């Protein structure tokens, strides 16, 4: 925690094992900086991300959730991210419809070679969430204490 009560968002990033997680790895080994507020959860494929995962993350106090996967066409399982793309589009649209600020969710395709993209994406996303402030609309009050 920083000394001056500055808002430090909690960000959950679901990263697919084959591209985005490797991309994050590359960002790390290339010493590219991205905020420590981002907590990465490795999943076998972006398609593994169940809508419930996203909601649970918000429930337990996340301020923003980002999902990263292989670029369309590059899925390790050939078509997983195409399905994920449709699912997340619909889910995020629903969250917006319920009044959850749509900047709190994001999908980005990051390949294993795109360490730079990973780092800039995360920096941008964290800035966005900082500007939106704490998530008060989709969290469980019991987790706040």
């Amino acid at each position: 925690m920083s000394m001056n009560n500055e808002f430090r968002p909690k960000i959950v990033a679901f990263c697919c094992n084959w591209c985005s997680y490797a991309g994050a790895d590359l960002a790390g080994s290339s010493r590219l900086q991205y905020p420590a507020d981002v907590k990465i959860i490795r999943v076998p494929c972006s398609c593994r991300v169940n809508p419930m995962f996203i909601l649970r993350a918000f429930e337990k106090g996340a301020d923003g959730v980002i999902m990263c996967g292989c670029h369309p066409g590059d899925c390790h399982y050939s078509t997983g991210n195409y399905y994920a793309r449709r699912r997340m589009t619909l889910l995020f649209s629903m969250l917006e419809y319920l009044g959850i600020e749509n900047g709190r969710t994001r999908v980005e395709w990051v390949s294993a070679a795109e360490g730079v993209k990973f780092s800039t994406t995360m920096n941008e996303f964290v800035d966005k969430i900082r500007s939106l402030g704490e998530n008060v609309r989709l969290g469980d009050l019991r987790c706040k204490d």
Partner: protein
Amino acid sequence: MYKINKENLSALFSLIAEANELYVPVSINGAVNFAAWDEDVQVDLDTLKTVKSPKDAFFPQSETLYSCKRNGKKLSITPEELSSKDFVVFGMKACDVKGLAVLDKVFLVDPVDSYYKARREHGIIVSLACSQPEEACFCNVFGIDASSPEGDVQVYMIGDELFWNAVTQKGEKLTEQVKSLLADTDEAKVEEEKASIKAIVERLPYSNLSLDGWGEDAVLLDKFNSPIWEELYKPCLACGTCTFVCPTCQCYDIKDYNTGNGVQRYRCWDSCMYSDFTMMAHGNNRTSQMQRYRQRFMHKLVYYPQNNDGMYSCVGCGRCVDKCPTGLNIVKVIKAFEKGGNK
């Protein structure tokens, strides 16, 4: 006997709310339920029955019992504080009040449920007579008088006036608190109203429902093994609507919620209609919906009365009649058995 003009109701409510928490029937987008009062809520005393019964003022749909924290191998337990502030539930109907008597026989027998007991001790019931009983009402079948509800204060809404009659000590105390708004009156109008309510009750479609063959003297196994259940349950969707709107259903579940820095153990209403109600590691003893359906009605009409000197665990509020998505209800059960010779 006192009275107050209806125009002054919100003054009455704010005066009550000064010293107590206050729950009143509130309309939210068309659905009326008991909720905490404040100046902005839309109070609705005209709707006869709230969707949910007011039992959750005393037995909330979910409440934390205690929290646990683990530190290495060590555990610590912090019980939730018991309710300690007086609260007033305004506008409970005769059936709702009787529903509490049914719950009392479960929660106040040894070992006493202290959470419920604390709420019962701090709860002040202002009951409202039903000036216009409706088609699904059959409280008279269980000996309940809609024209003279029990409670700490009885209230009658007649024309532009509200008549106020303190019945118990708690009621007297509340009356003292709001006396500045009340005017003395006699009972003539109330007696008239009572007679009118009784006359309507006699004309209700279910008022002649017969409970012969049920209750304390029911032949338990005959009823249990009756083939009629097999006919009755079929449209049942296995939802929990009937149990959650019921003023007497008291089954609950105890569950844990992990907040990330501790565990809150809470209890919440449960329904015997749910397939996982009796599920345990080695199997389920009620596997079909017929069995679960039968359990609910056998419990209300036979098991409970046999354990509680003949008192039924149904108060005839008719909420299940109104709310069942497929038109099933306890009345249909009673009628089907009557038709089948009560076997």
